[in-house]
């Protein structure tokens, strides 16, 4: 346990998972039956606030409105259609077994638990696998143009961490098409008067009344006005925290602010150290780099990953003969080859570069080569499958991937940690539900490709519509007036923070603080972590945070469209959150999934779990005041994880 965290609760009474016991395959049905219902004519009496309009938020808002609830949906973008789910490329998993290759709900469940390195809750994962098939049906009914075969039936491809083809896709734009499907369902409810959209609004605080989540404070990003919105439940669908690393595949606006404000108001934050570094991204080209671009994992179906056998080989890639190439994934992982899970592929790339085999100007890249596929199938077939990805690569790098291998390197992509939720997706604050990437529940320590879309839509379409009713039916929820002291208090606190940021008038830009934080996180808390580095990171982050509050320069005013101010608020929260992430990584003395502690590895440099001491979710409770931050006020609670169906084993993708 880390210094300064005096209290640890093992099997904390504050963490009631409310998961059904007994046969995992019938658990969700039994649980649904036990949940109280709100009768149809009463639903219109309840108001629900949904924050974020990505796959989880849009699907939840639309589905809740269809049931009859009144929904207010918020997003910081100018339209709900722009949430970052839109950028997901490769596909969405579903256990349809259309390919007749032996897939089943049980296999998807098994693959996901194993892929997550046994750090997810079995009951949640089984439910996710079982609703996966409904998701595809629902999306097709909405008019999502999934790829089809000539007979008119749906096509599939394979993804990392699985030996069956269960991934549905729409070109390399699957996230876009799924999000536009959910967005269209959402806008239909706007037309029917059941949803009101509040775009260009940023959530800055949670309103709790008598310990129950009853509303949010937002800033109107165009006028700068602060608004309070109250209701009977708050559904947070605000995505992940990858931008704590500054450089990531996230959109520039992605942030942890909404989740972090909820954390500081009492919601436990679970497993923040579980971050996914995606193996196939376009490498950094220089100091100006503002974000990183992912090349879909689906490329590993046909592309072969290699580095030269001789370190520093200066020949052009096409001039290096096969004998001088090391196809290291195929060599080390015979069974899965280039399709090993993301964490394994990323670490293997890092290892190759650390040992001096890296390629390109920076030597921080490996090759992803389509030469053999193009020779076998022809360039036209490759273009049909990956055309837009190849085009994107060419635009960014100025190189032609049809004639020269792509250079790729891992980058921060997804965060498995998030606010702790029970089986109903309710956080430790009653009435606050957390969906999609913002929660911690389904992916354990590593997410498999094409599973994020599945989880976001599963939570929104097929879980929250059932579970939220139980809260509404069983809680006393008196109407909250706008002048309620808890509402006014939250609004004043949010205003004060903004005024404080504007008042510092220092000399260093927000951007430069964000870059500095990202550098600390990537170097000490990235693909490989160790005790000394993490302790240093905690000190460095705290130091940077102190400097931020003394010396940041935020231009402009609070009463106008001010992107510098928006960014400042987000960076301020990352500077607190980053310390918790480092601390969680320090506390988890094992390697699992995306969390790799150098002290804990096998002789073959694979992750070495410690199931005796760490087979739990680590949920952090903030016990300090919400208007300041002190890392030592984070108190650890543990939710033990039990594996009754997929038995604890060491993951192996070798044979």
């Amino acid at each position, binding site marked *: 346990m880390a210094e300064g965290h005096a209290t640890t609760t093992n099997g904390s009474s504050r963490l009631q998972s409310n998961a059904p016991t007994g046969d995992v395959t019938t658990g969700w049905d039994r649980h649904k039956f036990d949940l109280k219902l709100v009768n149809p004519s009463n639903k219109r009496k309840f108001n629900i606030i949904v924050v974020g309009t990505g796959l989880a938020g849009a699907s939840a808002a*639309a*589905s809740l409105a*269809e049931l009859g609830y009144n929904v207010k949906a918020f997003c910081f*973008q*100018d*339209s709900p*259609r*722009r949430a*970052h789910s*839109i*950028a997901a490329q490769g596909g969405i998993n579903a256990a*349809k077994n*259309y390919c007749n290759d032996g897939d089943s709900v049980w296999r998807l469940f098994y693959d996901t638990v194993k892929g997550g390195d046994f750090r997810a809750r079995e009951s949640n994962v089984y439910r996710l696998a079982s609703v996966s098939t*409904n998701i595809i*049906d*629902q999306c*097709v*009914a*909405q*008019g999502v*143009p*999934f*790829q*089809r075969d*000539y007979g*008119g*039936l*749906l096509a599939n491809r394979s993804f990392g961490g699985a030996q069956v083809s269960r991934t549905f896709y*729409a070109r390399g*734009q699957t996230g*876009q*098409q799924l999000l536009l499907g959910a*967005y*269209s*369902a959402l*806008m*239909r409810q*706007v037309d029917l008067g059941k949803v009101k959209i509040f*775009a260009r609004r940023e959530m800055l605080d949670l309103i709790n009344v008598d310990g129950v989540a009853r509303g949010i404070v937002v800033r109107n990003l165009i006028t700068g006005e602060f608004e309070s919105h109250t209701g009977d439940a708050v559904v947070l669908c605000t995505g992940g925290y990858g931008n704590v690393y500054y450089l990531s595949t996230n*959109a520039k*606006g992605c942030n942890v602010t909404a989740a972090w404000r909820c954390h500081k108001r009492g919601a436990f934050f679970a497993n923040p150290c579980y971050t996914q570094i995606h193996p196939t991204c376009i490498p950094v*080209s*220089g100091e*100006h780099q*503002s*974000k990183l*671009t*992912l090349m879909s994992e689906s490329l590993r179906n046909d592309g072969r990953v290699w580095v030269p056998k001789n370190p520093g080989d200066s020949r052009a890639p096409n001039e290096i003969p096969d004998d001088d190439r090391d196809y290291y994934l195929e060599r080390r992982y015979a069974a899965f080859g280039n399709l090993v899970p993301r964490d394994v592929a990323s670490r293997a790339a890092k290892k190759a570069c650390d040992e001096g085999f890296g390629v390109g100007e920076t030597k921080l890249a490996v090759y992803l080569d389509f030469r053999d596929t193009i020779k076998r199938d022809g360039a036209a077939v490759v273009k049909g499958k990956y055309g837009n990805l190849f*085009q*994107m690569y060419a635009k960014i790098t*100025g190189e032609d991937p049809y004639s020269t291998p792509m250079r790729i390197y891992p980058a921060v992509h997804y965060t498995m940690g998030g606010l702790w939720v029970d089986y109903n997706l309710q956080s430790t604050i009653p009435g606050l539900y957390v969906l999609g990437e913002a929660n911690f529940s389904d992916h354990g320590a590593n997410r498999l490709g094409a599973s994020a879309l599945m989880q976001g839509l599963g939570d929104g*379409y097929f879980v929250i519509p059932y579970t939220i009713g139980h809260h509404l039916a069983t809680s006393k929820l008196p109407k909250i007036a706008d002048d309620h002291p808890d509402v006014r208090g939250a609004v004043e606190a949010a205003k004060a923070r903004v005024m404080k940021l504007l008042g510092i008038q220092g000399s260093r*830009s927000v*951007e*430069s603080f964000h870059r500095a934080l990202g550098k600390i996180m990537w170097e000490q808390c990235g693909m490989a972590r160790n005790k000394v580095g993490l302790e240093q990171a905690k000190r460095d982050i705290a130091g940077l945070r102190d400097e931020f509050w003394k010396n940041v*320069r935020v*231009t402009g005013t609070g009463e106008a*469209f001010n*992107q*510098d101010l928006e960014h400042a608020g987000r960076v301020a929260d990352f500077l607190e959150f980053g310390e918790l992430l480092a601390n969680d990584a320090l506390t988890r003395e094992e390697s699992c999934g995306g969390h790799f502690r150098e002290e804990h590895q096998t002789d073959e440099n694979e992750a070495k779990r410690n199931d005796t001491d760490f087979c739990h979710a680590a949920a952090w409770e903030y016990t300090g005041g919400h208007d300041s931050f002190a890392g030592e006020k984070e108190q650890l609670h543990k939710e033990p994880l039990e594996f009754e169906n997929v038995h604890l084993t060491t993951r192996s993708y070798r044979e």
Partner: protein
Amino acid sequence: MSSSRGLNLTLKIWRQPGPNARGEFRTYEMKNISPDMSFLEMLDVLNEQLIQTSEEPVAFDHDCREGICGMCSLMINGQAHGPDRATTTCQLHMRRFSDGDTIVIEPWRASAFPVIRDLATDRAAFDRIITAGGYVSVNTGNAQDANCLPVGRDRQEKSMAAAACIGCGACVAACKNASAMLFVSAKVSQLALLPQGVPERARRVTRMVAQMDKEGFGGCTNTYECEAACPAEVSVTNIARLNREYLRAVVVSEEGV
């Protein structure tokens, strides 16, 4: 990056403090810009410089920076999203420009997209058009098995090509009439081509077109600037389909629109 490759550029940027304020072009000199930078990274560098001199940074919309969210939106030397075909502003790279160039940067120009500040505009009109009918009326629930609705591959690919629209508004900005026909036709086509979209096709097209007109977008005069500017390569053949769908709806449909 060797400094010898760096570009020196003159930027002329539209600055407008608010929706009702008077705007003007201001000139900024940029030194030693790496050709590997994206266009927006070049603007990031400018903004860092402005912050150091206490001038307010240039407001511009952006988010994913990988060409899919549709948030970025700049007229670059008079062209929506700049000189490269099928490329959003965020995917445009500085290697496309030459040392000594002057680059004029403006917001989308259309009365239906009012300026919020500097280069950022309000495109909520697009959301209202989708709200009028850009969907299949299906609730979440037990939809039939996905393979019960076979869709021929050619039809699916045409539908997908229309569905690829990112909703950025370049089509409107590029059109001399500020017409939104390409945007509307993309959604109408996507759904008209699929069996799921057929039952309400007449209602959809009439309502979306009515909303488009109400928002103040201009009419289509077939100049195809929209197609040339579209980063998602949505084809003007969709506009022809939109016209057919509209005609069908008002002349022969039995849907009772």
